[in-house]
């Protein structure tokens, strides 16, 4: 993307500078928007990726990168789920350190994203799923444009209160598996109000993929990001 499109500026800290219109459509030559999906083990990251792929796979040119602790478990799950053709899913090995691969040394993930872009030409969206990790594991902004942090009610209703960069700084916090709340004694209201208190203006979505397999609210958020994100030149 060339500079004369007026895209690709860094964020200015000068309060007198007018923010660029966030709704200008992106130039088609820009690289794909990259959205990271992180969160603790078992919170439902892979299920969310599968739901998004199912809902968006026919509408967008989509690629998925998975980061497994072990082998290619998550990538295999997604391929078996049949939501995307296998060659649209790349798996990254993380050498015992899933957080390192998405934050401190993102090179393997950048390679995987570029491989997908080389294979398919222009993509609209690449979802990068982190390996299950802890509450401090966030994506580097050098790897992704937006990030979703997924926690679930079964992990304990005090998780949002505990904070950490995932809960407090992710562009979207998803509280997953809300259908399980009555069975695990989780107070959903406490979780969401804690989440809003910790996150200020940043959005929170509570969902259940059992009652809403299409992940409608998250899908809508993702589409809004696609319209708003201005990506750096490819």
């Amino acid at each position, binding site marked *: 993307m060339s500079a004369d499109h007026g895209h690709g500026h860094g964020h200015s800290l000068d309060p007198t500078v007018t923010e660029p219109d966030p709704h200008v459509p992106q130039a088609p030559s820009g690289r794909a928007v990259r959205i990271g999906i992180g969160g603790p083990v078992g919170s439902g990251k892979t299920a969310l990726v599968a739901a998004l792929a199912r809902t968006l796979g026919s509408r967008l040119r989509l690629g998925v990168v998975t980061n497994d602790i*072990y*082998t290619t478990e998550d990538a295999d799950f997604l391929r078996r789920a049949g939501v995307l053709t296998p060659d649209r899913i790349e798996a990254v090995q993380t050498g015992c*350190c899933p957080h390192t691969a998405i934050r401190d*040394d993102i090179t393997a993930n950048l*390679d995987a994203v570029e491989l997908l872009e080389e294979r398919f030409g222009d993509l609209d969206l690449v979802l990068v799923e982190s390996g299950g990790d802890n509450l401090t594991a966030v994506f580097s902004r050098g790897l992704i444009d937006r990030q979703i942090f997924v926690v679930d009610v079964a992990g304990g209703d005090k998780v949002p209160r505990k904070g950490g960069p995932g809960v407090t700084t992710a562009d979207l916090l998803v509280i997953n598996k809300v259908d399980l709340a009555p069975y695990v004694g989780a107070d959903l209201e406490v979780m969401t109000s804690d989440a809003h208190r910790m996150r200020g203006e940043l959005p929170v979505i509570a969902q259940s993929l059992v009652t809403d397999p299409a992940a409608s609210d998250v899908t809508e958020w993702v589409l809004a990001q696609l319209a708003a994100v201005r990506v750096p030149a490819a």
Partner: protein
Amino acid sequence: MASLAALTLADARFPGGGHVHSGGVEEAAARGLITGVPDLGSFLSGRLRTTGLVGAAFAAAAVVAAARPDAGWAVLDGELDARTPAAAQRDASRAQGRAALRAARLSWPSPVLDALCAVTPRPHHALLVGAVVGIDGGSPAEAARCLAYLAVSGPASAAVRLLGLDPLAVNAAIVALRPALDAVVAQAAQAAALSPDRLPAPGAPVLDLMAQAHVHHHREQVRLFVS
């Protein structure tokens, strides 16, 4: 004065893709060949004198090459391929070279890197390290020391993560390799200006076989590291 490039490239926090490689430790541990710090020390010693020496010599030669108008990267690349018989190890070396190249182009932009990249967009790690140290004004010995150190520090870190070894004891095991490290560096620096075909070529057939076995097992059972 120490080369800042060599220090940066040898730093475990350098974002060059090194943390996903175990240099054969994962396969050796899976086979019960490494169970504790003494085994690890002996493994690292062997690795340093074979794979480590080859890498160190090519890093040193790359410093000399980087200073020439025509570096001759293609010949060095081919000679290093010839000394790395296992395809899995060539892949691992090129994956790390490519990852380090990403960071290097931002930190040490230079026509030297452009020329290397034009010959191979996925350069061997040793050549990338030597080119960068050369661009930064470092010596062949500094590049060799960086490569030789990485040949043992990366696998040692993988062993800590895989086997839960005492990291203090593992650090001591690395430092205990000092005499061998010095010897490898001296030999590599001495060879730096030789014609590429005359660079050292020690082999470690068991490491080669285990690297191939690791890739094979990757597809069948749990493996945490790429190599």
